């Protein structure tokens, strides 16, 4: 482009549209762009990667950094307060309890990515738990209001039916939100209430005991130590190989790919984390006798994480979810079927909450009406976990792994406070503060709320 | 120069309906009939068209009230629903929801949502009850109420700052507030099982007790009501007349007359119900419960604030188009913060009423904060307030609250055995969903503010 030597650069300004005027921040689009590109895409070497990553963190998009820092802080703090915190017994305990939060957070993320919220996940979990328990009641146990003679379902059938019911609930809520465009917090708030009532009806006033061994094992059972190591090896090798070859082939074809050292470090990190977990689990954590080995629920949670990550990152459906969260109008004009995608997200959220419910039932074993009432508080923790993990409340930003990481934080806080003997009211207060803090961080990291809000 | 009827034109940026309307025809449907009508007949024609266009105002809630009254009258045992004693009980119960609703409405008008009002209400009640305890601190009743309202206002203000200046979404902030204060109540009460009580024989504490439980002397009730009706009626009449005389837009005279007549009829009906002796054989309980004039006073306050002050005007403006309000120089953070503060203060007073309703006993079980919020939001929406902002009035809270109270009480009257507890959850949930569904569907064509921007 020819320039007049004596004149300053006269490039036409990329001005904002008139509707974004008073007090306008005119973005220096070129300069702004650098901060927002994920470092793995532009970096050619490890050093450059770290530089670009640091610039991005300072620009506000810190990804999982806050939550990792949070995990370290919380766990170190509690370990100092009570040295039993990171002992083998407690850590596995902690992971087991966190699994519920992780699953609920992963469920919540489906709604949050759309820019919506699902307040009913806690009660979907509760309803799933009591439904599961009632379905496997042996014949003759006249307990449930809706099935007076005990249906005696086999455990696998009960699980399938429960999950289908959950998906149906998600579909109903999703339809109201996606097709009638009712606000999601109201629909799921109403859903929460209705589900609470339905759960109470299912329980019919009597507590129910999960009397099925296989279902009990879901939460409390574990692999043998040897199997644990084999599983770890399989997982690490599989993910390592697939990551390596994918990145290598992209690099070979000249496509955008992170530097090789970056991939290697990622694989190593996964391996190290896996080894740590298996080691901890294989230590004897029983008060009497021996309990050793990786609990069944770890691979269950991992499988859900894996499935949803693939769905959100690698499929068209997932792409559309992020698109709707980022700019629904643009997605609509691009031909994305908004009602369908939105409805399915709520179905998947309810499904994940249902899985959480199965684990929950297995964990509690003895389900009473108080359990139903307490299921309510889980939703706040799920939202807090997702936001702490890095998912934005405003939509379009977040990953399934955030649910896992956030769940570890919340589980750690809850477990730690319990170990320290803090009363439940104060725990409520504490969780509220954590939620507020997470929300504040989310807003601040977005530079003041969703772009375009006044 | 007038607009040619029936012109088809592309939509200007910022225009309400995305459909290509025959603008003239659409315009007629959306203009409040009382503005255009010159005669009563014209008014009803225009009103009918407005109904068909989807903006039904108070009609759904009034129709719902009639349906609910008839339905419950038929299905409750001994057709007890419409007995005066039950009706007065419904009035008393509803007042809590009415007040909560009126507080929530100002936040809804902004296009936000305050989920903490249930917990804040209980906080307000606990604070007031604690302050009025003998031997200490033994505040006079008006001081106890004032301090309680102040504390709740501060709570609301803090939440408002987080929403308005830090820009955390309101439902996160108020959700956190809900949790926080639910825990705080137990801490303030000193444990989950303790309770605070009022002694009705103590004249200072009796004031709070009598809010719900005490009644005004029958004669005084009739006289006072008569005076109030006459005053309000004349103000309405003369204002309309003077506007008509000076050539400003005003509804036809017959419409004003009908409105005054309806108001008088409602007052007479309520008074009549309250005058019937509801104490049975052993006692004479008659007269208007104190809480009714108190709540009507609150209604008057909020109506005046929203319709006749600059602050109220700005609330509606922000709900309708925050950018327009900002450009006009309105300080959005200021208005928003104040609204949350006033909402919480109003909720605090509702909490005081709640304690009085439960015979002056305050424990952590006296109310479920979650249920309180849901009922009051449902009441507001059923009454006609929009969840998306910019549309609603204080009276919606009163009518919606009455309906919610009637439903809640009616359900409890029916002996449903084990179903009764679950129904306490299911029914408000279903009612809320229905109300919102009606709100959303009925506004398909007339989306303003946040609703217009939703894709």
């Amino acid at each position, binding site marked *: 482009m020819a320039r007049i030597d004596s004149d300053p650069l006269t490039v036409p300004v990329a001005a904002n549209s*008139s*509707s974004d005027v008073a007090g306008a921040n005119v973005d220096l689009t070129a300069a702004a762009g650098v901060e927002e590109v994920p470092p793995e895409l532009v970096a050619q070497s490890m050093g450059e990667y770290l530089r670009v990553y640091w610039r991005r963190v300072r620009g506000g998009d810190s990804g999982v950094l806050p939550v990792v820092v949070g995990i370290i802080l919380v766990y170190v703090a509690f370990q100092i307060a009570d040295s039993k915190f990171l002992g083998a017994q407690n850590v596995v305990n902690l992971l087991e309890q966190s699994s519920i939060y992780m699953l609920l957070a992963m469920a919540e993320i489906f709604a949050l990515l759309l820019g919506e919220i699902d307040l009913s996940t806690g009660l979907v979990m509760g309803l799933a738990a009591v439904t599961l328990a009632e379905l496997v009641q042996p014949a003759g146990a006249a307990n449930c209001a809706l099935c007076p003679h005990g249906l005696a379902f086999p455990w696998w059938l009960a699980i399938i039916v429960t999950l289908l019911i959950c998906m149906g609930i998600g579909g109903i809520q999703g339809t109201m939100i996606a097709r009638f465009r009712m606000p999601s917090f109201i629909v799921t708030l109403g859903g929460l209430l209705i589900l609470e009532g339905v759960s109470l009806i299912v329980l019919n006033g009597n507590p129910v005991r999960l009397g099925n061994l296989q279902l009990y094992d879901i939460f409390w059972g574990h692999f043998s130590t040897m199997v644990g190591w084999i599983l770890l090896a399989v997982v690490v090798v599989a993910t390592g190989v697939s990551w390596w070859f994918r990145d290598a082939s992209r690099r070979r074809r000249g496509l955008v790919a992170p530097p090789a050292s970056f991939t290697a470090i990622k694989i190593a990190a996964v391996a190290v984390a896996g080894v740590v977990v298996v080691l901890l689990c294989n230590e004897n954590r029983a008060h009497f006798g021996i309990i050793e080995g990786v609990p069944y629920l770890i691979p269950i949670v991992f499988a859900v994480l894996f499935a949803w990550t693939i769905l959100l990152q690698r499929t068209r459906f997932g792409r559309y979810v992020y698109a709707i969260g980022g700019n629904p109008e643009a997605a609509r004009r691009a031909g994305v079927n908004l009602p369908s995608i939105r409805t399915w997200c709520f179905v998947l959220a309810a499904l994940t909450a249902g899985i959480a419910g199965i684990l929950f039932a297995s964990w509690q074993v003895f389900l009473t009406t108080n359990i139903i009432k307490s299921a309510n508080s889980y939703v706040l923790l799920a939202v807090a976990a997702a936001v702490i993990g890095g998912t934005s409340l405003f939509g379009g930003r977040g990953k399934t792994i955030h649910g896992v990481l956030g769940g570890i934080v919340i589980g750690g806080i809850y477990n730690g406070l319990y170990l320290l003997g803090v009363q439940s009211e104060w725990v409520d207060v504490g969780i509220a503060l954590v939620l507020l803090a997470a929300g504040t961080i989310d807003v601040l990291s977005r530079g003041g709320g969703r772009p375009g809000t006044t | 120069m007038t*607009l040619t009827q029936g012109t088809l034109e592309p939509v200007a*940026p910022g225009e309400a309906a995305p459909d290509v309307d025959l603008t003239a025809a659409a315009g007629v449907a959306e203009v409040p009939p009382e503005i*255009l009508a010159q005669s009563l007949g014209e008014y009803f024609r225009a009103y009918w068209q407005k109904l068909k266009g989807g903006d039904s105002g108070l009609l759904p809630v009034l129709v719902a009230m009639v349906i609910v009254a008839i339905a419950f009258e038929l299905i409750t045992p001994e057709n007890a629903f419409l007995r005066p004693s039950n009706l007065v009980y419904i009035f008393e119960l509803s007042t809590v929801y009415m007040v909560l609703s009126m507080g929530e409405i100002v936040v809804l008008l902004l296009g936000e949502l305050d989920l903490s009002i249930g917990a804040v209400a209980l906080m307000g009640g606990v604070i007031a009850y604690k302050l009025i305890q003998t031997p200490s601190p033994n505040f006079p009743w008006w001081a106890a109420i004032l301090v309680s309202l102040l504390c709740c206002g501060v709570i609301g203000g803090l939440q408002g700052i987080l929403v308005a200046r830090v820009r955390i979404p309101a439902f996160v902030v108020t959700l956190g507030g809900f949790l926080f204060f639910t825990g705080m109540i137990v801490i303030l009460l000193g444990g989950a099982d303790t309770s605070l009580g009022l002694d009705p024989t103590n004249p200072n504490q009796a004031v709070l007790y009598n809010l719900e439980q005490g009644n005004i002397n029958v004669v005084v009730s009739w006289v006072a009501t008569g005076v109030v009706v006459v005053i309000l009626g004349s103000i309405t009449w003369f204002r309309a007349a003077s506007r008509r005389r000076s050539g400003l837009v005003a509804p036809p005279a017959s419409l004003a007359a009908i409105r005054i007549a309806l108001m008088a009829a409602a007052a007479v009906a309520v008074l009549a119900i309250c005058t019937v002796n509801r104490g049975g054989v052993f006692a004479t309980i008659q007269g208007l419960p104190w809480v009714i004039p108190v709540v009507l006073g609150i209604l008057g306050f909020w109506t005046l604030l929203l319709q006749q002050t600059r602050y109220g005007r700005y609330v509606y403006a922000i709900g309708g188009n925050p950018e327009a*309000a900002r450009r006009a*120089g309105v300080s959005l953070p200021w208005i928003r913060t104040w609204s949350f503060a006033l909402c919480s203060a109003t909720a605090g007073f509702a909490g005081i009423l709640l304690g009085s309703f439960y015979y002056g006993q305050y424990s952590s079980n006296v109310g479920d904060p979650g249920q309180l919020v849901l009922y009051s939001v449902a009441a507001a929406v059923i009454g006609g307030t929009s969840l998306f902002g910019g549309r609603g009035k204080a009276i919606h809270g009163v009518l919606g609250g009455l309906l919610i109270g009637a439903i809640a009480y009616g359900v409890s009257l029916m002996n449903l055995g084990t179903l009764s507890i679950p129904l306490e959850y299911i029914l408000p949930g279903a009612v809320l969903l229905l109300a919102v569904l009606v709100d959303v569907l009925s506004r398909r064509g007339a989306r303003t503010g946040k609703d217009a921007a939703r894709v």
Partner: protein
Amino acid sequence: MSEENEHGVGPHPSATAEPLLKLRGIDKHFGAVQALYHVDLDLPAGQVTGLCGDNGAGKSVLTRCIAGVHQPDRGQIYFEGRPVHIRQARDAAALGIETVYQDLALADNLDIVQNMFLGRERTHYQMLDEDSMERSAGETLAGLRVTSVRSIRQPVGSLSGGQRQSVAVAKAVMWNSKVVLLDEPTAALGVVQTRMVLDLVRRLRDHGLAVMVISHNLNDVFEVADRLAILHLGRMVAEAPAASFDRQSVVEYMTTGVSGGRPDPSYTPLEQPAEAAAETEA
């Protein structure tokens, strides 16, 4: 903002008098990007000045500099002959400079009177003085001959595009304003509505205001403008009475910075910028 001059009716200056608003040597850059370069502009009272330019020419930036949203890096603004500093929107309003942006900034749920007085309500002992506001709003609309609204109390959401534009314009001019800037007032309006708005613009001029209309609809511009000011890539390449232009020359100025019949000797054209130049603008 005195009460008596609310309709902006003032003396009708002759065309040779000092322009009401004068910009001299305005520079504005954003980072490395020069948005305006040595821009001069005259806005005389009682005339309509059409500001033209292609996307990215700097029309919006110039408007916002006058309106107080941006501060120029160099140059001077003169109002009624005196140099002024417009640091924020309030300063512009205090001088009597009003802007009507493209999105109109109207609240659909409020009626016409409430919108016109938004932010500047009249109160009587803290209560809104509805009657007096209604009367004034009615007089303003009548003075501008906006008669197509059925009732001044109908919600703005129920108005047509042209009526909304009229209300937005009336809202701008009722406050003793002397300069009115209209950003794309006829964009997305149909034929009849456009006529309504253009008639309104002429009436503003007849009341003695200095009106600037930003538009890239040349039909509308030629219909209503007394003067044209054309921007090209941040420079003012032509500014003269409208009669001295024809459509051809205006287009040439807008797209190349020169016109076959009237080259500006001090101006050397740049190569055409890439697609990036056609950024979203007014």
